[in-house]
């Protein structure tokens, strides 16, 4: 029987350690409980596929797919993140203190993704249960084909928000450039105010839920309508 032994803390300097060595150490059964990663210099695929409740703090900007496929771990990126941060996350949390590039939280099934700055295009594309809270603005086609989960935006949203949305819920405080197909403005009932307050608290943002607008699916694309055949 293998016993996981969590060591207290460890630091990996990517100026002298490879991405592969770092990820192998984070996956090892004797992985430390808390890990500091220095000099990321925009490297790709850092802290991917983690599967245990460890804390990882990356000191600087990261490249593509950081903290992808995360389960249980809590990853903080103290800087900006490249394409696809927290892609396909299942649980745990990922926090980006700067901005995130496109496709943040794409296809993620669970967990909490917090972006303190702005997120670029396609934030939460095909989200499947993740909660995403963005302190700034999000780009175009965000929550495209979102199936489940919540997307909270304290700033503005770009064009075609929630295009072809299924059941994810979207809360935006600022301006929405345009809504995508089948995405509509919805009433903020008491349960939505409470849900939004929980998400803001979880993300550590101080904002008034009353200032937000809820968006969701009009559910007109669920079924084929012969009258719309020419539009398909």
């Amino acid at each position, binding site marked *: 029987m293998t016993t996981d032994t969590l060591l207290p803390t460890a630091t990996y300097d990517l100026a002298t350690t490879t991405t592969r060595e770092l990820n192998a150490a984070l996956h090892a059964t004797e992985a430390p409980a808390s890990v500091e990663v220095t000099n990321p*210099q*925009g490297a790709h695929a850092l802290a991917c596929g983690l599967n245990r409740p460890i804390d990882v703090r990356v000191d600087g*900007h990261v490249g593509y797919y950081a903290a992808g496929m995360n389960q249980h771990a809590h990853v903080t990126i103290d800087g900006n993140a*490249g*394409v696809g941060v927290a892609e396909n996350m299942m649980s745990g949390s990922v926090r980006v203190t700067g*901005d995130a590039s496109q496709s943040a939280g794409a296809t993620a099934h669970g967990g909490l993704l917090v972006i303190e700055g702005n997120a670029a295009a396609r934030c939460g594309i095909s989200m499947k249960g993740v909660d995403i809270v963005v302190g700034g603005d999000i*780009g175009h086609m965000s929550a495209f084909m979102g199936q489940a989960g919540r997307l909270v935006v304290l700033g503005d949203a770009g064009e075609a928000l929630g295009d072809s949305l299924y059941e994810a819920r979207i809360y935006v405080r600022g301006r929405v450039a345009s809504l995508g197909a089948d995405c509509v403005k919805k009433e903020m009932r008491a349960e939505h105010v409470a849900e939004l307050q929980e998400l803001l608290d979880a993300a550590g943002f101080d904002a008034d839920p009353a200032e937000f607008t809820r968006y969701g699916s009009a559910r007109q694309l669920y079924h084929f309508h012969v009258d719309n055949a020419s539009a398909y």
Partner: protein
Amino acid sequence: MCGIVGLHLRDTALEPRLGSLLTGMLGQMVDRGPDSAGVAVYGNPVFSPAGESSVSVLDAPSDLAATVGDALGVTVGALDLAPTTVLHAPVPAALLADTVRALAPAATVIGFGDDVTVLKGTGDPRVLAENFGLPSVSGWQGVGHTRMATESAVTAAGSHPFAVGPDQCLVHNGSFSNHLSIKRELEDEGVVFDSENDTEVGARFVAQHLAEGADLEKALRLLGERFDGFYTLLVSTSDSFAVVRDPIACKPAIVAECDAYVAMASEFRALAGLPGIADAHIFEPEPDRVYVWQR
């Protein structure tokens, strides 16, 4: 894929380091495009001495400088930066380029102007940068490109940048899907092409509009109206540095701006080694928006 790097210096103290900074940026983008590379340098006194114009040539005959000098009645300097040859002479840039084209029809002019020098080749971009002597080059602006060929063959002429107008360069990550129809229209207007590369069509389109009096921002807006496909473009001129992405913005781009420079690359890791990057304003250009920085 393809990797783009560009550096537009504002702080003249950094000018001696332009080539070494650009070399480091280019090296980070090799795995986005390992088959060929090209760079353009603005303001290097060796490539383009003060008061002279220069022209960059591929497949130049060995006696090209002498024959061009005889035809123009001036002394023509030559630098062999294989596979690129750079000629410079105290005559207008267009005259120097036209003379090269007339006397060496089998050669390809890959850049000309009063300020810019273009160097291209095939193979590992890091080896090419060393062969070009890039690490020790000075200047005020530079662009570079590592190419993963998708729309045309791997040749030096098909490498980026495409520098088809005076002191102009265009590099591209992505592909244009309607470039052949636009190419036919330009050819009907008398425009001559050097390669089968889709990016050259974009560069010829921009050069034509600049020649007709449009400013760089307008030329790039017109490109956006006419060209379909995926693109992040970096376009440079004798006084400008511009970035534009298509409306879908699938192709990556990141910009760092500070008092000392504006830098652009496909990925952050190409910017990570720049001095003062920790304090620069770093952002991802918005889709379908033309960004222009002027000297």
